[in-house]
């Protein structure tokens, strides 16, 4: 199980990576992250939405209200060009960190 501090640091990367595929609303986003990480990363509402709003203020993502087929209004988030630019160095940083940890701990398949 991944610790809280690391989770916090990886949350931005997780959100940006998932939104790179397609725009998603908050619930879908958290489900997808949880499913793709096999439950290692899961967001409470207090972690997800403040982070989404902060990323929106930094203009990495943009949220727009959309009405689904059943008439429910949902806020859909999509990656902005700035967010795409941010994703590449973030990925590189984390890859470097994980490679370093892998070398350090001599654990394969980290």
């Amino acid at each position, binding site marked *: 199980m991944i610790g809280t501090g690391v989770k916090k640091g990886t949350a931005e990367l997780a959100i940006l990576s998932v939104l790179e595929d397609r725009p998603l*609303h*908050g*619930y879908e986003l*958290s*489900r997808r992250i949880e499913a793709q990480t096999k439950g290692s990363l899961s967001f*409470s*509402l*207090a972690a997800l*939405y*403040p*982070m989404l*709003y*902060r990323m929106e*203020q930094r203009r990495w993502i943009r949220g727009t*209200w959309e009405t689904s087929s059943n008439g*429910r*209004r*949902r*806020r859909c988030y999509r990656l902005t060009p700035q967010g795409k630019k941010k994703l590449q160095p973030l990925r590189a940083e984390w890859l470097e960190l994980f490679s370093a940890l892998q070398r350090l701990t001599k654990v394969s398949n980290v």
Partner: protein
Amino acid sequence: MYDWRLLVQQRLAGLLIEGGGAAQIVEELAGHLEESYQSLLRDGLSEEAAARRALERVNDWQDLKRKLESSRNKETILNKRVSQFWFPAFLTLALSMVLLAVIQIFGPTPWVGPMPGGRLRMTPVAAVYVSWLIFLPFIGALAAYLSRRAGGRTLALFFSVVFPVFPYVAFFVIGLPLALILDDKVAHNITLPAFFVGLSAWVIFPAMALLAGGWPVHYFASRRLDAGQGSGS
């Protein structure tokens, strides 16, 4: 059937977001919980169990509220403290001091009245003091308005309203007892009733006068805010 919007609205009551975004946040979070609940129902859980599991996504509503406010409002915590407390507090203090000085210089002249026995009675302090007390509710109302406009909560608003009495509190609670102990030039014949008269005159009555102006502003502003949130969602 759960009313998720009402539930979120109640749990996040008083959420202060710049530009009136609180209603949208309530709608978004309610939508999240609703979808989570529906998904759990589809998984075969009972309504009660599904609602309980959906709500487990929020451990602490107050923590969520704080995080939402800090993420959506651009101001830093320090700026918030300045605008919600320090600025109204020091403005109130300065205004009350200036007002006291102005009344002393330009205000009513001391009352001079005859007393039985042909002596004259002068009450210069009362003339200045009562005039000052009459104007304090307006200063209290201004402090409450400024603090509330900046998003100040009840505690910040209360202390910014009564801030002008703090120097007197410090004097009566710390300064005077210390002076009585350490300074032999201070009259040591101050009686306990005189001490409480002074405390009432310069702390309790001014605080009440300030609150008499500040509290109605807080009350009506809170009602307006609640009404706005109710109609906005």
